[in-house]
């Protein structure tokens, strides 16, 4: 029997994902990230500043609507930090989801011309999203440090700040997982695109981004909220920096388990779609 390096067949197993090949294409991932950065910053003077405008405006609106008018509690922490922190970490999920959810439709042209492991594309998007997150996070830190040093006791940072990379990783996994599931479905059913922005918005209100879990009365409502896998991440993030909120290893473990399952499912669905999507897109 002769040996062949590559065999192209009609079907592969659902779990037959060539991670070795993805690793071989790591330089491509780097180039895609570079391309994203260049195309955002070239020929704009303010470039990165724009990324900060959105959280500022949103925070101001939340302060007025939810803080002043609705008078929703922020667990006694400064409103500006509470909202800004929530928005910053949530934005990273949203950004990752929004960009990866367009993987197939936006790259149909490239995908139709050349082969490379398609997963590289959403991976690159999540990676370049880190830069936007970094800028927004730096802004959050600036405001945070101001409160930390000028207003004694307004915020109580603690050891769990060390878990920040875990929170970011989990948000990336959620964004990537849901995004690639979404993009796989939209190749066949275009109308799902309409759900995209709307769905993320709904999800945000269903997660404790602009309100703390403690503001929800004990009972069914709170139980449902605690089932939301985003809850431990958002609460944990605020707990680490502001000292208010809830943290437990169990809930974090639950969140990580859900993220892993979603990402795993996403990769399988994505993998199944990538092989023939060019015929249907």
């Amino acid at each position, binding site marked *: 029997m*002769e*040996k*062949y*390096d*590559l*065999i*192209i*067949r*009609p*079907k592969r197993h*659902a779990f037959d994902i060539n991670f070795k090949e993805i690793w*071989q*294409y790591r*330089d*491509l991932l*780097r*180039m895609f990230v*570079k*391309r994203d950065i*260049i*195309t955002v910053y*070239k*020929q704009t003077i303010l470039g990165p500043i724009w990324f900060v405008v959105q959280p500022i405006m949103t925070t101001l609106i939340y302060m007025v609507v939810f803080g002043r008018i609705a008078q929703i509690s922020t667990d006694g922490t400064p409103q500006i930090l509470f909202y800004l922190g929530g928005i910053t970490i949530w934005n990273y999920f949203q950004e990752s989801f929004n960009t990866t959810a367009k993987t197939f439709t936006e790259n149909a042209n*490239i*995908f*139709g*011309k*050349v*082969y*490379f492991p398609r997963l590289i594309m959403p991976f690159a998007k999540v990676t370049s999203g880190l830069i936007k997150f970094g800028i927004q996070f730096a802004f959050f830190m600036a405001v945070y440090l101001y409160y930390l040093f000028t207003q004694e006791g307004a915020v109580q940072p603690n050891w769990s700040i060390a878990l920040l990379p875990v929170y970011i990783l989990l948000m990336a996994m959620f964004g990537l997982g849901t995004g690639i599931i979404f993009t796989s479905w939209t190749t*066949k059913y275009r109308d799902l695109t309409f759900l995209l922005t709307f769905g993320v918005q709904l999800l945000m209100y269903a997660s404790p981004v602009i309100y703390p879990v403690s503001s929800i009365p004990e009972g069914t409502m709170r139980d449902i909220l605690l089932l939301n896998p985003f809850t431990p991440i958002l609460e944990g993030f605020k707990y680490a920096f502001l000292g208010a909120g809830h943290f437990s290893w169990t809930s974090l473990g639950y969140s990580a388990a859900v993220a892993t399952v979603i990402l795993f499912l996403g990769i399988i669905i994505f993998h*199944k779609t990538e*092989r*023939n999507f*060019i*015929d*249907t897109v």
Partner: protein
Amino acid sequence: MSKTVIKIENLSKIYRLGEVGTGTLSHDLNRFVRMNILGQDDPYAKVGHVNDRTQKAEKGELVAALRDINLEVKEGEVLGIIGKNGAGKSTLLKLLSRVTSPTTGSIKVKGRLASLLEVGTGFHPEMTGRENIYMNGTIMGMRKWEIDRKLDEIVEFAGVAKYLDTPTKRYSSGMTVRLGFAIAAHLEPEILVVDEVLAVGDAEFQKKAIGKMQDVSQNQGRTVLFVSHNMASIQNLCTRVYILEKGQYYYDGDTDAGIQKYLNNRVSNTETKLSERSDSSGNCLLMFEKVIIKNNGHEGINLQSGCNAEFDIYYSIKETLEEVVFRMIIVDNQDVVRFVCNNYHSSRPITRITEDGKITLQIKNLPLPEGKYYFHLLSVSKNTKLHDIEFAGSIVVERGDFYGTGKIPTFKSGLFINHNWISY
């Protein structure tokens, strides 16, 4: 014997026309269960339809863009893949490039395969030439260090050294294409799959590109699969041709014989009325019906060099047409143009056509040497194409006394021309 580097077995690709999915949720579910859980073949894929684009597609009809293709390519071969539009060439390329996957069958490949369906994939106009080299190179599967090593060569081949750090949006389109091809040419895969779209750029660059491909195959012993409509470049490059016809195997073998077979096949339907030919284009307000060829007034497709040839071209019209131009291109058996007859240049457009009729193209003293020729027909009215048929018919020219001297020339290339030698 050299070893097989590509082995294609029973390869088919089925497309469903009209809609995506089987159309009903229950079929979709049934198919899903069978294919994904039970691991069976698609129960709704009917392998059996011939891809015939002349027939109007029924809703949800399945069409085999490729059917039961078996092909082996040996190391160092330059294989030309030819076929009419819709014969399945692009589908085969897509399958080889792994852009889409087959419905049945398999392709086995030995060594690295790179396919060029396009040059400069992934180029971004905001990025500099250097950045785009890395972008495109990595998309094609090169590692960064490989590109580092070849950067100078690529830049030199493309001739863009001066503009390496300029965004490619400031490049001329020719420069962009050259850069794209230069990267592709330096990929150094064991197997290169090339689409004819590569035949872009100016004449000088084309020569360079073809030269590079020849170099790749002959001197470096690499395998090349080349898809083209252009018989001349196929003849130049390929050691073997594979012909597809309506998604199926038609011919596999020697280049010259293959090209003959392909061209003959294109006119084999001279019996079919021209107006019913499926491979024509235009708005069909005027349709060619038939062409009757006369040799010194006698009907028949056999002509002689120097004879008085007449082509009676019959047409039908749908409405009154003005300023009509007719054009006939005579090509030889390698699809190389020998001459063009066009009433726009040689006289003037027909002012007005009000009813079906014929027009006669008269060529006194036919300048074609011995051989088999084909003609393309085209009619245009006020810059809109009415009817365009390639390979509308064929003629056979026998040796003849072109110069009227009683001597019969025997060479076959070029054209005869009336001339004088003046001695002093």
